[in-house]
């Protein structure tokens, strides 16, 4: 019997004897940390993520934090000043996936179904009676939304929503858009769709419980203490953009997702909810001009192989999924390798590449210990 096989057999025997829960490590209450020994692969990862930083021109890969968790244990952790392990960093659009996890708890409590009309939970959508909750979650409301910002600020719906005409009531601003596609037929990435989800939770759980719901439903059970979630002037969480937390706290959500919505012995998110998050939107057609674009699932991004297209991140397993935000924010989950990766950044150009970072993470940490 080859040595590696023998080692695995003995290990498997030990795990079976100890029972499945005893073999799992959880950050309860704190993360345990076992930094890997220096190796060329570990060095290559840091070299990519923390290349010499150009703060004057703001060009190139500019990571603020890199945290790698393997099977519930920190194996790699590095920050660039002024970001530290204690900094609640802006997550930008990672917020969308976080809010989907908040909604997952509400879903498990029976507050809504995917084929409920949005208008049932958010009355201003009476103007769009055919838009369903599931459509919003797939960014497929059919609304005529313009997400582009830095290059088309005049007509950008998202700039108007966050900073000018929409900022008082972002969901209401979104509801004021006309449809230009049949709901559920077309993917169009939209921060507006995400903020309507943010508003729809209000009537589900009641105004009183709403203000604390992300904490009571998700953050407190996971032991997340650093979270800040900004709201618009109407009190609606800016589900699209404005959640903050430390890298270590964001990794807790990653571990929850890696373990199928289970936290310790508690099934916090229904498994069917996580499965929905990880299912490609059926009517999504990849853009041949953008082969690296991840595939939209239910407010999460997937490295799925679709017919007629190659895997978005070629060196990464196709069960990998992620929450992604503006300027390089990322939470990656690689279930088969039991890896969770948090990357915070301030990338102001397109130098950073998801596949390149994950390729190096896999080279350094992809093998099971």
């Amino acid at each position, binding site marked *: 019997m080859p040595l590696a096989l023998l080692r695995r057999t003995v290990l498997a025997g030990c795990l079976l004897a100890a029972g499945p829960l005893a073999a799992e490590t959880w950050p309860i209450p704190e993360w345990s940390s076992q930094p890997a020994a220096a190796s060329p692969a570990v060095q290559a990862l840091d070299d990519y993520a923390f290349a010499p930083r150009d*703060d004057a021109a703001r060009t190139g890969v500019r990571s603020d934090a890199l945290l790698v968790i393997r099977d519930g244990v920190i194996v790699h952790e590095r920050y660039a000043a002024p970001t530290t392990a204690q900094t*609640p*960093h*802006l997550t930008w659009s990672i917020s969308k996936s976080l809010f989907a996890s908040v909604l997952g708890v509400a879903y498990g409590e029976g507050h809504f179904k995917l084929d409920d009309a949005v208008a049932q939970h958010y009355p201003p959508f009476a103007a769009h009676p055919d838009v369903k909750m599931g459509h919003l979650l797939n960014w497929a409301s059919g609304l005529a939304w313009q997400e582009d910002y830095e290059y088309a*600020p005049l007509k950008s719906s998202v700039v108007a929503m966050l*900073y*000018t005409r929409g900022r008082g009531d972002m969901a209401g601003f979104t509801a004021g858009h006309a449809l230009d596609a049949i709901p559920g037929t077309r993917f169009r990435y939209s921060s507006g769709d995400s903020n309507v989800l943010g508003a729809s939770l209000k009537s589900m759980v009641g105004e009183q419980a709403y203000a604390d719901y992300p904490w009571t439903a998700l953050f407190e059970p996971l032991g997340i203490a650093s979270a800040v979630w900004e709201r618009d002037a109407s009190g609606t969480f800016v589900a699209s953009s404005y959640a*903050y937390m430390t890298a270590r706290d964001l990794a807790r959500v990653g571990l929850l997702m890696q373990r199928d919505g289970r936290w310790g012995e508690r099934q916090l998110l229904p498994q069917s909810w996580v499965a929905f998050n990880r299912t490609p939107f059926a009517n999504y057609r990849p853009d041949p001009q953008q082969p690296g674009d991840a595939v939209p699932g239910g407010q999460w991004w997937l490295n799925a192989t679709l017919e007629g297209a190659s895997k978005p991140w070629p060196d990464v397993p196709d069960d990998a999924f992620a929450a992604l935000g503006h300027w390089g924010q990322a939470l990656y989950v690689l279930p088969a390798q039991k890896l969770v990766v948090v990357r915070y950044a*301030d990338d102001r150009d397109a130098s950073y590449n998801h596949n390149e970072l994950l390729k190096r993470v896999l080279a350094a940490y992809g093998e099971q210990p």
Partner: protein
Amino acid sequence: MIRRRPLLSVFLLLLAGLVLQAWLNRLHLAAFPGIIGAYTAKEYCSCRYVSGNPAEYCAAYVEQYVPISTFHDDAERKRVTASGMGSSQTAAWLGPRQGCQLQEQADPL
């Protein structure tokens, strides 16, 4: 008219097109000057009072191509006011879970 004054005709046609474009985009144009002040006030406030980064870092973090004419960080009250393109905007820190929010009225500078 077109044959006698071709240049003037082209100019008038272009002008009419511009006016039409401006009218069609009036909502976008009216809101446009508010963007830079609002962006700067809001993202500086959050950088400073939510993430807890140093003032100098946050000033560089929010810098854009469009210049800011006035900037005031009221550190005691955690209220940040920024003006650009003739529009003043204020963001205020509301609490440890709420973070920062743009205010309807800008603080007087």
